[in-house]
């Protein structure tokens, strides 16, 4: 029992420590593709360190929502980390608390507070970004629901630990069309949810074109660091859900032994690195969509997810 709690906390620690690294590697690889050298992969850590040592300015006009939001944005990915398989293929101590739908709800809660906080300060760019995020959000919502529904349909469960085993036994299940189409739909969702390139440009500095970033413009000092770290952890958690639950449980610890769990860390990071390479290819080969074309992008994600469901019906 105590071991399960320990591993659960270790999982949280891994997400906390390695989330900025993933962001750094992603940035560096993108710069290399553009034949620049780019900042070191450890730059996100330095940014966070710097921001934690800076003074903070909070507008007098803002309410408690503005002050609470960084903590919520920081805590919600950690909460989800307790529920999902990051390192182990068996449920840990806190995993009973919610299934995948519950995890999605907790992540959405962070997004909700971020949007509220952006409106709170009355900075002209904040509400604009908030409303755009909501637009992307409500277009992504049906895709999320259909993806979860199809997962439940195929695997007879929404509990991640049961779902992940479904794809591997027997091995032919991995090639099942509903599985492949689900993966494709979820990649598009990750791009939309994490504000990656066909939907939003994470490295842009032009406020009028921002979707995700303009919500955090008002934050400084520790709050800015928390928001940033929270965003990086959210990407990490989404990648873990995708790679460990929807793709395969390869590389995860099978037994309740410390050695195996520690060995799982580099394996999981390796899996994430491979996916980051795919992300880099997507981001470098596509242009950012115009705002009103995003509905078409998420529409095709919706079609892909519904096609996954139909394929399941067809194959019955």
């Amino acid at each position, binding site marked *: 029992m105590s071991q399960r709690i320990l591993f659960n906390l270790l999982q949280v620690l891994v997400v906390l420590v390695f989330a900025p690294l993933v962001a750094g590697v992603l940035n560096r690889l993108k710069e290399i593709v553009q034949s620049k050298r780019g900042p070191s992969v450890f730059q996100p850590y330095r940014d966070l360190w710097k921001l934690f040592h800076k003074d903070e300015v909070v507008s007098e006009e803002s309410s408690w929502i503005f002050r609470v939001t960084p903590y919520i944005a920081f805590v919600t990915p950690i909460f989800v980390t307790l529920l999902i398989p990051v390192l182990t293929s068996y449920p840990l101590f806190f995993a009973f608390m919610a299934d995948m739908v519950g995890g999605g709800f907790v992540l959405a809660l962070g997004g909700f507070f971020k949007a509220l906080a952006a409106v709170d300060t009355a900075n002209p760019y904040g509400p604009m970004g908030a409303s755009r995020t909501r637009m992307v959000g409500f277009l992504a919502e049906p895709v999320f629901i259909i993806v979860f529904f199809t997962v439940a349909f195929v695997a007879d469960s929404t509990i991640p630990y049961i779902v992940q085993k479904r794809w591997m036994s*027997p*091995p*032919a*299940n991995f*090639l*099942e*069309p*509903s599985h*492949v*189409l689900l993966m494709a739909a979820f990649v598009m969702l990750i791009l939309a949810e994490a504000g990656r390139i066909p939907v939003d440009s994470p490295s842009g500095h032009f406020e009028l074109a921002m979707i995700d970033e303009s919500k955090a413009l008002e934050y400084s000092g520790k709050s800015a660091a928390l928001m940033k770290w929270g965003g990086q952890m959210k990407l990490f958690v989404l990648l873990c859900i995708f790679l460990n639950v929807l793709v395969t449980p390869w590389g995860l610890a099978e037994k309740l032994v410390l050695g195996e769990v520690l060995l799982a860390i580099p394996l999981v990071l390796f899996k994430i690195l491979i996916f980051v390479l795919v992300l880099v290819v997507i981001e470098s080969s596509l242009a950012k969509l115009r705002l009103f074309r995003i*509905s*078409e992008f998420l*529409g*095709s994600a*919706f*079609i*892909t997810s*519904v*096609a*996954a469901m*139909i*394929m399941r*019906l*067809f*194959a019955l």
Partner: protein
Amino acid sequence: MNDPQTTLSVLDSLNTLAGGLFLLTAFGIVTTRQAKATLTLFITQSLLLAASAFLLGLRHGSWHLYGVALVNVIAKPVLIPWILRRTVHEEVYTRREIDQVLNIPMSLLIALALAILAYFLTVPLQRAVAVEFRGSNVPIGFAGLFLGAYTLAVRREAVPLLIGLLAMENGAFFAGISLARTLPLLVELAIATDGLIIVFITAVLIRAVHQHIGTTEVGSLAQLKEQVAEEAPEEAVR
């Protein structure tokens, strides 16, 4: 992996996967704006059809299906684009279709409804045939057929319309290869030649239309006569 049961189930999975991607390309043909991209999607679709025929052939040990796969690989991805390129003006290829009859999200939803309809239509059919003929090919083929027909209804450019027609044929074949496993190669060859001739005639027609009117936007062919605008201004205003 040497276990024959496992091999069979892997083959079945791969075949259904080809079917799933086939369905996606059919959706793509409905909505892609650029004529060139539509052609690429059609080529992908034909290759997936060939893959499915090959896998079914492997599954059931049928030489005829290998023939179907071979004919598909040669005729559709190579010969049809070649004929189109030879006959149709290059400008037609690079055109973007700005307005379809319906906007794209709407169109996608209708296409989805058609795909689901295909499933419900094939359930009684599936019940009527013997067990070994059941599978995902028939409903997917029907969905491809419907989506091709829907493409014909909703698009306004000549080349995508032609591709919609060919996609219908692909859909019919996709259903056919799982039902008629010992289809004589002669029939298959005849159908493929038929497809090529359709492409040739339509391409010549497109070329003629393009030469006369300077556009291939079929949607505006209701006003075919150029004088309409001067002779009846109230018509033009409408």
